[in-house]
């Protein structure tokens, strides 16, 4: 009996000792982590930004992180399935804009997932016109709408590409109620489709980006592919942090001319509408909060070292680390602003 009791005691003690590292391990990121992203493209900004963050985190924590460009729907499903921390996600404002625009497959990310830290901003979201367009500025476009002229804007509906279009309609409504009906969407797909819509004469304005479209603004006069920027949606405070040399042959000062306050698209008659495309982590709601703390801590240290910022800036991203709690509050505030804009123009786009 004594022997049995001793044996039991020893077994329980051994189990407790063995369980300790397991319990400790459960509070940390596993050795192999899959980082899914909300884009299927490995040539886009989401992959590029996630690869930079994954590299830095892998090195700092001594683990393997593999970025998988699976697309939003598959990424959300993968996140739903895994609460162990083996699968984490990076995406951008599309995650809540998709929900606000009522796209299928987009639940409210603030209710469904744990919001993690923000890591960077892509300040490149832009609107362009053909090089020979009669519209020289957003002012011209909004005036044309006010004068009853139809302005066709090529977008990919239901997210980041549409939010600037919604803001244009909202600004038209604020300036001259009813004129927003003259700003109409041309629903296309990828950036290639939006460019093609312009070249086919199907769109007067297209959504694009500084990165993807800047070279088209530098083509020789008379080149049918030529374009001009008319609006960059980033906040001026964000764009000011971009490298002074800007992108390609367009320096930062020139880019600033297309952003608020030089180019004004009003939000409510007093303030300008702005939009920064921000990248942040999303986690399974049931994941151990200690893992989120670990990522927050690691990123705090990584950003304190400073090397990641150089790499982000070299790729035309603006470093923007906010720990999870601050990130969530910040993104919720952003969501509320855009929710109002979408509500204002809903049913009319």
């Amino acid at each position, binding site marked *: 009996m004594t022997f049995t009791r001793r044996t039991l005691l020893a077994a329980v003690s051994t189990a407790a000792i063995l369980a300790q590292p397991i319990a400790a391990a459960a509070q940390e990121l596993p050795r192999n982590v899959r980082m899914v992203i909300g884009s299927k493209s490995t040539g886009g900004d989401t992959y590029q930004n996630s690869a930079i963050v994954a590299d830095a985190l892998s090195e700092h924590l001594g683990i393997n992180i593999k970025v998988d460009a699976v697309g939003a*729907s598959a990424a959300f499903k993968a996140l739903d399935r895994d609460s162990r921390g083996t699968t984490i996600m990076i995406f951008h404002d599309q995650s809540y804009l998709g929900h606000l625009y009522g*796209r299928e497959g987009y639940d409210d990310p603030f209710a469904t997932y744990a919001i993690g830290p923000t890591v960077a901003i892509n300040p490149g979201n832009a609107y362009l016109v053909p090089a020979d367009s009669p519209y020289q500025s957003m002012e011209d476009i909004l005036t044309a709408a006010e004068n009853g002229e139809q302005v066709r804007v090529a977008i990919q509906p239901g997210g980041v590409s549409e939010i600037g279009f919604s803001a244009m309609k909202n600004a038209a409504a604020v300036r001259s109620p009813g004129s927003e009906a003259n700003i109409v969407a041309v629903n296309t797909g990828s950036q290639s489709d939006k460019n093609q819509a312009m070249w086919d004469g199907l769109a007067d304005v297209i959504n694009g980006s500084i990165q993807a479209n800047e070279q088209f603004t530098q083509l020789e006069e008379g080149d049918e592919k030529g374009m001009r920027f008319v609006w960059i949606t980033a906040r001026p405070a964000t764009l000011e942090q971009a490298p002074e040399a800007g992108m390609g042959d367009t320096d930062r000062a020139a880019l600033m001319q297309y952003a608020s306050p030089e180019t004004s698209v009003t939000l409510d008659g007093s303030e300008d509408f702005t939009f920064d495309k921000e990248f942040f982590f999303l986690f399974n709601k049931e994941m151990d909060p200690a893992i989120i703390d670990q990522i927050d801590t690691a990123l705090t240290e990584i950003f304190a070292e400073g090397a990641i910022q150089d790499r982000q800036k070299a790729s035309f991203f603006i470093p923007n680390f906010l720990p999870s709690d601050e990130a969530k509050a910040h993104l919720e505030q952003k969501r509320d602003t855009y929710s109002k804009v979408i509500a204002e123009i809903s049913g009319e786009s």
Partner: protein
Amino acid sequence: MFEIITPLFLSLIVGGTFIGIIFGAIPGMTATMAVAVCLPLTYSLGLENGLALLLGLYVGGISGGLVPAILLGIPGTPSSITTTFDGYPLAQKGEGEKALRIGIVASFVGGLVSLFVLWLFAPTLADFAIKFSYVEKFLIIFFALTVMAALSSDMLIGIFSGVLGIFIALIGTYDISSGGNGKMRLIPPGTEYWLETGFSLLPVLIGLFGLAAILEQAELGVPRGFNKDEVKVGGKSTFSFSVFRGQIVNLVRSSGIGTFVGILPGVGGSAASILAYSNAKTFSRHPETFGKGEPAGIIASESGNNGLTGGALVPLLSLGIPGDSTTALLIGAFTLQGIQVGPLFIGNNPDTWNAMIFAMLIANIAMFVMMYVAIRYFALVVTIPKHILFPVILMMCVIGAYTINYGIMFDVWTLLIFGIGGWLFVKLRLEVAPFIIGFILGPSAEVYFVKSLESFGTLSIFFTKSWIAMVLWVLIIGSILGSVVLSRRAKGQPDGV
């Protein structure tokens, strides 16, 4: 430029080509997958070295697909589908080695022609490519779809099978990123979770071609050992370049078609070999031999799909727009280095441009040498007893299906569903080739058709949009008439593809 050409640069091209061939040769693994797997490595390699690796993988991956297409009747990549039509029958006649050599030479020529076009005419062709709007792209897809009739032993059943393929391809969400409305359609209630994005192409492809063939063989009974009559490696079946006599036009035309299709973003790589094959059959003096082991069919298919490699780089490097799914991944190599590709890329980055051309040239040469030398070893696959070979193929198919979308189990179920479906197709006398062509081209046809109507508001736009549209209509009508004539001629010979 010459300082870029280091031993590391050359090794990466050759190594990339070798790995690419292996990926292409395994059913279910593709050039796209090979590039995706190796993409993260390119950051540490630097731009030119990274591109050397990726371009090697691209050329090797596209080329490797011909091996299982010819020896096993399973297309290694979607662009090798038409290679199976004549390659596999030739292999079944005991001329697998000859079929492989024909395919490799055609791939090499296709790759070189497209590289030459890329090198000399990239910016000019990009300007031409942007003249193809939704309307012209729909007509090209429609032209490719007309091949369904030509590939059928019974035209009516062939067209029905093709339309069924289109219908099944439309199951899922009408994808916003392709210009759709983001709504789900044709999904049976309760299956939305799995069918939200529809059936993936590759599991469908390897199910219909791979698993179905294994089930068919299993039904007949798989003998231990192998049929010696089917296996002739070397000997009488040896290859001679004389097989290309009279095929120069086919070779150049098919390479040109592949290159041209590659230049048009969004048309898709599979359309290249389908169009090349269809044209070869239409212009052949003996179209009735196609589908029964006709070397011209292999030449058209392989020069067409390798012609794509250079063509797809034209819009990538001249407009910043990828020409196919693999070049869409290549953009990642540039963006990871913080370099934007667009209309000024070639002029602003002459060293990188020259390095890419050189890498493509070396990759094509390396592909040719490696595959040509290794051909006897490839061909030995048919000597493996089927009771060992089939389980191995089945395992590779399952692994390929599972990994294609980074670990989705439903893709394995898709493989099994379409494997059984393919087996039933034969029982029901339906035709697999038109079905898969409809499945591949259906979604693009839908998007371009709907977008054309949304943009221009009238059906007449398909006839009045441009002179390019008129030329395409002439080709479409020619292809349909050709199919009707062929069908009448073939009456009484129901052994077509």
